[in-house]
């Protein structure tokens, strides 16, 4: 029990930024805490009641003082706001070249799927020095993917995709916690994030049984679930071809349009009649209950592999 840490390790590009902001807030908080404590202490001693009947002079309020101690705190809080908002904004905008990894939370484990096909439970191996973007969902209740060393945190919500991203800066092993109460074994829903040197990461990727990439798995599912019967590549099927779909803008039967991102593809699989492509009948059956969230992610990756690269999406979501 030698070390007594007050801060978690800094293992991502965000970590020092967040810590610097913290120091600023700590400085302001310490200043005002000491100021108030000292003022109270000093006044309480200096102006201690000397005689029972004494009647202090009434101090009428001073508008200048009120304005001063309104404006200065307001100014300081606006600095805090702007600084914090800028970090938050950037935390919501993963770079285009981020390594995409998929996460599915379920009571009480984390299921992680790499694009190349590798799957992990409660562990996430990532390479050093590259931005990593996690696309997450939950199979049941709300969970939350929290890595203190990265200073990042994001809910995994059933029924939708959420994203978080970070760029690791230090090789090592870091705690992964579920930070949204999710039932009996919430505090056991923990794991580790392994940040590896790029060479070690490549080795790790190659090791173990070759399961095929996520997109390969998706291709298999595409056949098994008979999607291929309607979604022919030559656009002569009853349904639109999926080649080049990902990242494009789709015209809908209602006249509106939608960007074909991960969420759109997921919705099309699970609730196909929510949005109908213009010119096509609402003929697609729903696959809700026939495919798991992981299966959906595999199909998403497969469809991505049929079309333009994720860069076409311009880093949205």
């Amino acid at each position, binding site marked *: 029990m030698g070390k007594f840490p007050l801060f978690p390790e800094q293992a991502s590009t965000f970590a020092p930024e967040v810590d610097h902001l913290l120091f600023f807030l700590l400085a302001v908080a310490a200043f005002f805490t000491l100021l108030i404590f000292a003022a109270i202490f000093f006044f309480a001693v200096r102006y201690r009641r000397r005689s029972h009947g004494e009647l202090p002079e009434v101090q009428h309020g001073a508008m200048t003082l009120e304005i001063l101690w309104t404006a200065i705190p307001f100014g300081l809080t606006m600095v805090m706001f702007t600084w914090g908002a800028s970090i938050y904004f950037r935390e919501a905008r993963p770079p285009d070249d981020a390594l995409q990894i998929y996460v599915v939370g379920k009571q009480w484990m984390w299921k992680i799927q790499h694009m190349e096909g590798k799957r992990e439970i409660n562990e996430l191996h990532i390479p050093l020095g590259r931005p990593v973007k996690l696309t997450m969902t939950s199979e049941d209740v709300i969970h939350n993917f929290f890595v203190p060393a990265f200073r990042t945190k994001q809910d995994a919500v059933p029924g939708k995709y959420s994203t978080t991203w970070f760029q690791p800066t230090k090789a090592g092993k870091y705690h992964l916690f579920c930070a949204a109460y999710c039932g009996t074994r919430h505090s056991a829903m923990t794991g580790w994030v392994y940040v590896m040197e790029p060479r070690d990461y490549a080795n790790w990727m190659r090791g173990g049984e070759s399961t095929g990439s996520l997109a390969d798995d998706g291709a298999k599912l595409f056949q098994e679930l008979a999607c291929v019967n309607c979604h022919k590549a030559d656009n002569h099927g009853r349904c639109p071809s999926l080649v080049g779909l990902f990242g494009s803008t789709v015209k809908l039967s209602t006249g509106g349009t939608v960007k074909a991102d991960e969420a759109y593809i997921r919705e099309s699989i699970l609730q*196909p*009649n*929510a949005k109908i492509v213009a010119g096509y009948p609402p003929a697609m059956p*729903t696959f809700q209950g026939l495919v798991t969230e992981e299966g959906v992610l595999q199909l998403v990756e497969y469809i991505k592999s049929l079309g333009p690269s994720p860069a076409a999406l311009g880093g949205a979501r």
Partner: protein
Amino acid sequence: MASHTRTETLALREQFDTEAQQKDASTLGMWIFLITEIMFFGGLFLAYTVYRRWYADIFAVTSSSLNVYIGAANTLVLLSSSLTMVLAVRAAQLGKRKALVVFLILTLLLGGVFLGVKAYEWNQKYVEHHIPGPDFHFEGVAQQGPAQLFFSLYFAMTGLHALHMVIGAGLLIVLIALAAKGRFSASYMTPVDVVGLYWHFVDIVWIFLFPLLYLIDRHLGR
């Protein structure tokens, strides 16, 4: 000033100094209560608005399965009951006991008609399998989930409204009994006043419910 040895009457309870003060306080109290009711219904309106936006197409179809003519007729019934309620308040202000009782009874009857029509509408929904639950099925929409959601919100909102009407009916019955016994006069008719406020509020909630549930996007449905 008034002391606590004064005998308490209905019009001047012991915590108040003058009858005017009591009347003012009672009226203000009812207004604040109605504001809390606005917040209460407001939560449901918010949920409905959110899902209406999310599932505009499906909600348009499901809402047009409601009978707009019956809804409109019911709206007229309720508006008329507000008219009779106002006339009852006026009668009370003028000290006209018989007129007060008659108008209160008319208000109660019209409220009963509204509730009866509502019961008929709900029964229609039951027959058509539009009641959320294991028997739910709505023809002609792509997803049953949002369709059921529409009807869940429909029953929650109209149900809550109907509950408030039933409570209002209860209050009216009490008022009728008291009025018949001559408990109100031109100088003391606060209960009639505040129940009137409550009744008008319940009416206004319906004025919002009717367009929200029956009328929006009617031209898009089916």
